[in-house]
């Protein structure tokens, strides 16, 4: 069994006690300690900035041309915090409880409680940084609601919350760059962790412009490199999002936790054809006001607006009256798949459902505005006009985005949406201090196996990324580095650096020398297809077993027939991509293995063999109440370690959103 180093004591006191007793590094010593931060999304940027502020010498790396471009920027809907500004009964406990329940009881109680506790500080911090959150007319912060909760606790900035939060963290980071405490390396990709005496002591990174491989020393290494949803080829992730940094750490001995836990987001713009390179999310916040439906008749050929009210099946409201359209993501996604599989899907591919704003546009916003303007008995047209203005304010950018992609006007016709891969709850296994099982190697944000169990609630990813970076790591890293103050910076001429660099160079040469006939992209597409069909929204033992074989086959083909044009010592985007896809293939295999091993359904992981009569996910707490932490044992070979999940505060039950 793995030790997650959860502090003793009452759940609600653990974090306070930890902070009160953890080891500290004095300011003079901080200046002697170097920390490497890989990735500059919410977790990375906030960590690098905060650690720089504390006085550590930080080196931050990102593969984009600027730290401001990390994919956290694309998060739309909002960030949760237990502020209870709405006076609707929210509290730290309730946020904690919702997150545990939403995660289908596969997350660590102590971590989640800490997350709920620091959530309130995040909002204060961001406001102080100048993040322009949405406000009421009275000048105070506004909230909206998200799936899996019955309170309004989500802070937002139109449909660009992630952008605003990241810009806040980015600005804090750039301030530290200006002050000289953080050194920024953009257009750099981490390609290995350097281990000395069992501890993480640096990284090997490639300059993506010159193609040169570099060595960087650090007393500790933080991986804040996001999730691996792109293993499915089509996902809402950015094109460059990848697992490489985390995977290299895994190959160096870091355990990979719950790799199969993938979040399929219910509201994305559906796939239209083979040319598609990525999928676009339509924020969950839209489910505040959008109602999801399909026609009651199978294969109904009529246009959405021609189908009368009584011939529409608002299936989420029908199946889950208590939460309605705001059930958690995994539940909503499966329900959409169920309807489409049963022949009720809409659009040309029949793989879509409607997300319709007309009702709330007219009845909620239109009427409220009419009343505000003193219009009595407004006609339909007036209501639509007034309602549109409010909807535009709330979701304007999302509606525009939808229209640009589909060419349809969502103010007039309902959006067509379908689930798509969005987030990965799995990631590097970390303990309470966010340290992997490798001393000195940390994983933050989506890159760790995280606080979200088997399903993440909406608006919680931003919360976790910032919690880890701003409020957790500054304390927990001190507890480790306090014992490292005597360690002098190790010269990068050390044998371990040389070996690691040689390994990286060798792999690059190997890739370049295959000179086969198929493009990297074509392999990625094929991998994605296997993963989506067999390790996607519904999984079974047969499919998973097949998938493992197919991926192994694909991997062989890749290493013997991939074609990478260009050279090594130059900017070569195909080479960058090839390295990432090679890692995705290995990860894909592990995901299938993990999914196969976990013969229960929980959250986003749905094993067809394990479901209730109504088709809901059926957990098996007796056998699977653990975190699966996989240790790499060479090619296609892993050993499973388990971290038992103990619930002191909450009693796991069958999730119920009815």
């Amino acid at each position, binding site marked *: 069994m793995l030790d997650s180093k959860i502090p003793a004591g009452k759940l609600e006191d653990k974090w306070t006690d930890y902070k009160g007793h953890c080891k500290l590094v004095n300011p003079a010593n901080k200046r002697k300690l170097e920390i490497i931060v890989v990735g500059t999304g919410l977790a990375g940027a906030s960590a690098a900035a*905060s650690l720089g*502020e504390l006085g550590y010498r930080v080196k931050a790396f990102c593969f*984009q*041309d*600027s*730290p*401001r*471009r*990390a*994919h956290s*920027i*694309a998060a739309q809907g909002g960030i949760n915090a237990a*502020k209870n500004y709405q006076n609707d009964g929210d509290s730290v406990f309730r946020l904690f409880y919702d997150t545990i329940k939403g995660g289908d009881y596969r997350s660590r109680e102590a971590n989640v409680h800490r997350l709920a506790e620091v959530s309130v*500080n995040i*909002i*204060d*911090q961001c*406001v*102080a940084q*100048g993040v*322009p*959150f949405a*406000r*009421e*007319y009275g*000048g*105070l*912060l506004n909230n909206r609601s998200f799936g899996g909760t019955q309170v309004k606790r989500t802070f937002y900035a139109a449909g*660009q919350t*992630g*952008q605003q939060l990241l810009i806040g963290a980015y*600005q804090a980071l*750039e*301030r530290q760059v*200006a002050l000289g405490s953080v050194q920024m390396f*953009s257009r750099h990709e981490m390609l290995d962790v350097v281990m000395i005496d069992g501890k993480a002591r640096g990284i090997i990174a490639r300059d993506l*412009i010159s193609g040169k491989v570099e060595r960087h020393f650090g007393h500790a290494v933080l991986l804040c490199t996001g999730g691996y949803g792109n293993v499915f080829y089509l996902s809402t992730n*950015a*094109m*460059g999002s990848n697992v490489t940094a985390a995977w290299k750490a895994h190959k160096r001995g870091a355990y990979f936790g719950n790799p199969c836990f993938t979040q399929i987001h219910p509201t994305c713009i559906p796939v*239209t*054809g083979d*040319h*598609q*390179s990525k999928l676009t999310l339509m924020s969950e916040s839209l489910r505040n006001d959008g109602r999801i439906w399909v026609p009651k008749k199978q294969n109904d050929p009529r246009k959405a607006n021609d189908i009368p009210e009584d011939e529409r099946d608002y299936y989420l409201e029908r199946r889950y009256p208590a939460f309605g359209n705001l059930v958690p993501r995994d539940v909503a996604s499966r329900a959409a798949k169920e309807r489409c599989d049963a022949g009720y899907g809409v659009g040309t591919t029949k793989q879509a459902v409607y997300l319709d704003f007309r009702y709330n546009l007219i009845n909620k916003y239109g009427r409220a505005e009419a009343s505000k303007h003193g219009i009595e008995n407004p006609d339909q047209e007036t209501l639509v006009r007034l309602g549109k203005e409010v909807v535009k304010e709330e979701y304007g950018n999302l509606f*525009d*985005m939808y229209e*640009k*992609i589909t*060419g349809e006007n969502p103010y007039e016709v309902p959006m067509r949406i379908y689930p798509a891969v969005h987030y990965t709850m799995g990631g590097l296994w970390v303990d309470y201090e966010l340290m992997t099982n490798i001393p000195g190697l940390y994983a933050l944000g989506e890159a760790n196996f995280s606080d979200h169990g088997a399903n993440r609630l909406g608006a919680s990813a931003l919360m976790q990324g910032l919690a880890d970076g701003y*409020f957790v790591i*500054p304390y927990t890293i001190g507890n480790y580095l306090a014992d490292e103050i005597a360690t002098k910076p190790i010269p990068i001429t050390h044998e371990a650096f040389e070996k690691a660099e040689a390994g990286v160079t060798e792999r690059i040469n190997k890739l370049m020398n295959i000179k086969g006939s198929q*493009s990297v*992209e*074509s392999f990625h597409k094929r991998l994605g297809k296997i993963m989506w069909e067999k390790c996607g929204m519904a999984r079974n033992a047969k499919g998973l077993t097949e998938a493992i074989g197919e991926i192994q086959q694909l991997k062989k083909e890749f290493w013997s027939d991939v*074609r990478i*044009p*260009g050279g090594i010592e130059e*900017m070569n985007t*195909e080479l960058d991509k090839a390295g990432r896809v090679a890692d995705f293939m290995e990860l894909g295999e592990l995901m299938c293995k993990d999914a196969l091993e976990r013969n229960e359904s929980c959250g986003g992981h749905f094993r067809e063999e394990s479901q209730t009569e109504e088709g809901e996910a059926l957990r098996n707490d007796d056998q699977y109440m653990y975190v699966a932490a996989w240790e790499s044992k060479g090619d296609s070979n892993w050993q499973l370690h388990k971290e038992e999940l103990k619930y002191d505060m909450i009693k796991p039950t069958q999730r119920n959103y009815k």
Partner: protein
Amino acid sequence: MEHYSMNLTLKVWKQKNATAEGNFETYQVKDISSEMSFLEMFDVLNEQLIHEGKDPIAFDHDCREGICGMCSMYINGRPHGPWHGTTTCQLHMRAFKDGDTIVVEPWRANAFPVVKDLVVDRSAFDRVIQSGGYISVNTGVSVDGNTIPIERENADKAFAAAACIGCGACVAACKNSSAMLFVSAKVSHLALLPQGDVERKNRVLNMVAQADKEGFGSCTFTEACEAVCPKEISITNISRLNSEYLKAGLSADKAH
């Protein structure tokens, strides 16, 4: 929406690296669906080039949903192409007709040197932010977020300015290669909020000085930046920057 397929001629800027001489290459692409995004059309072209054993075209892109600000193509004489309020990655092929010729160039400005093909170096923007585009608060402030109410109008204006994605289209479009829309968006975002008030003078003076140092030109209000900005950042922000600059420059009593 009717879909159609098209054959196109592409003239694309190719340049091996920062120091190499570049030139336009002409390519033909066939059976492009009107449903594709512009960058997906480039994916098709690149796949084609790889199969022909040629070097694919390097271009910056990441989120492909119009928010990361990485994509940066100057298409037929306009940054981000013909659509209004759109990034290159959001541009879809239904904007073009069968038989069209499309010319694609990188952003052009001394401050944005070409790295390879259509990829340019925009690190100047980061340095402009480093010069003052932030509020100096360390992590761990304990003031409650609701302590200072902010007038809704100002909060909305601040947000509208903060929506800038730092893509550089404003510079690419400006005849002066001025970055004022970018700089003013940040100055406005922070100046409109009470939290940003304390550092407002130094911020505007330093950010303008840095932008000048990077080799961006001055604003002559041609409005080209506003017209091509994918986030429709208002040029009024530049007026606000000027006003801030004037106030700061006239009142600041410290040598810089």
